[in-house]
């Protein structure tokens, strides 16, 4: 099937939402190598979030439309995979932390995903501490999420996805709403994820830290082109 080198591949993918006439993407190809950091840039309205939905299987699972071509994660067709088997391989973080945090305390928030996968308490505890450490927010463990700043909340969101220990992470404009210092903190997390051999796809309309990326792609006029 697919090359072992690639964790995620998209082949000749075209897509349009059911509600729209025009295709957002036409014949997109993308190969993501294991352990790499890939940046995808593009102006607003070019379909960056839609691409994230496609790569993570949210389209067609949640949002519907017409898809041609194929997207595979570890050689398996994403559109045919169940939500639970995707989420242990692929974690996705969105722009707005407010709608990704729904538990009162940071600890509850981080326990949420491993609880869904029926891990026992010791394992959940290990995963919570590990994720907090990876993001550098051990001291927030018993904080109420509502009292944290926007940037801190986004770090909690990243940690809550890391508890599933996915190999691939998709970050959809996660620094758009945070200040410079928190942006740096997020970038530090991304480079430490690289050291742990995680694969990261970061999508943004203006990525300031492109030097972190091994590969850079640009979305424009329904096409994806490599610029680095």
């Amino acid at each position: 099937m697919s090359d072992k080198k690639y964790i995620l591949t998209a082949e000749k993918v075209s897509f349009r939402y059911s509600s729209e006439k025009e295709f957002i993407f036409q014949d997109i190809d993308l190969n993501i190598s294991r352990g790499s950091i890939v940046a995808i840039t593009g102006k607003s309205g070019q379909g960056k979030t839609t691409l994230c939905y496609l790569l993570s299987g949210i389209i067609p699972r949640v949002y519907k439309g017409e898809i041609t071509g194929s997207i595979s994660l570890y050689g398996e067709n994403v559109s045919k995979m169940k939500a639970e088997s995707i989420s242990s391989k692929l974690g996705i973080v969105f722009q707005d932390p407010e709608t990704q945090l729904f538990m009162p305390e940071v600890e509850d928030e981080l326990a949420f995903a491993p609880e869904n996968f029926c891990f026992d308490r010791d394992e959940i505890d290990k995963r919570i501490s590990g994720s907090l450490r990876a993001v550098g927010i051990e001291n927030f463990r018993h904080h109420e999420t509502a009292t944290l700043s926007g940037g801190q909340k986004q770090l909690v969101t990243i940690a809550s996805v890391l508890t599933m220990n996915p190999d691939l992470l998709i970050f959809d404009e996660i620094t758009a709403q945070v200040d410079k210092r928190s942006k740096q903190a997020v970038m530090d997390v991304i480079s430490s994820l690289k050291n742990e051999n995680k694969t990261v796809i970061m999508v943004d309309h203006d990525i300031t830290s492109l030097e972190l990326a091994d590969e850079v792609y640009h979305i424009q006029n329904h096409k994806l082109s490599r610029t680095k």
Partner: protein
Amino acid sequence: MNSQTYIEVKNMSFCYPRSQFRLEDISLQLNRNDITALVGENGSGKTTLGKILTGILKPASGEIQIGKKDIKTLDLGEIGKKVGYLFQNPEKQIFAASVYEDVSFPLEINGVSPEAIKDRTESILKELEIDHLKDKYPFNLSHGEKQRVALAGILVNETEYLILDEPTTALDTDRKELLGRMLQKLHSQGTGILIISHDEIFINKFCGRVLKMKQKGGITDEKV
């Protein structure tokens, strides 16, 4: 004191209930002949200050004047006629089922004559290049378009001052340029502008004055 001063804040303090955050003893003057930027780290209270200046939040002490009138004597509707406030999220200030209706309904409620409503609304839609969207359902538009609809809804009131909260966050470079040029035009027509932002490129290009908020309250003028 500048004869162009439009908003004046004297020794204003503010705190949220059940929170450590506070603004202390802030004094500043905002002038109609400036495009002013309000910068500072997240959490320093930029948005909070913007909301205080438009009466959304009430200060604990001190005095605020808009066009020589004490803000306490004005209700939100009256403030809205003097100072236009663009929320960070334009969806918050869009209300009607079509773009045209959304821009024009406050005028109707305030009893402006139908001819004047038509004139003002159509010219503002044209100016912001959204006249082709006038019958569209605003909630289905793109972020940039929604922002222009929200801006049209403010500009139609012909306010003397504008406060924009992070107007560039979701805009690409071309759209930023467009917004900047439009603000310059309004400025040349005599509208004072305050832009809350951390977009340095945009600020350097378009703002003549920069106010910086410090983490522990206090504001400094960085460039005049």
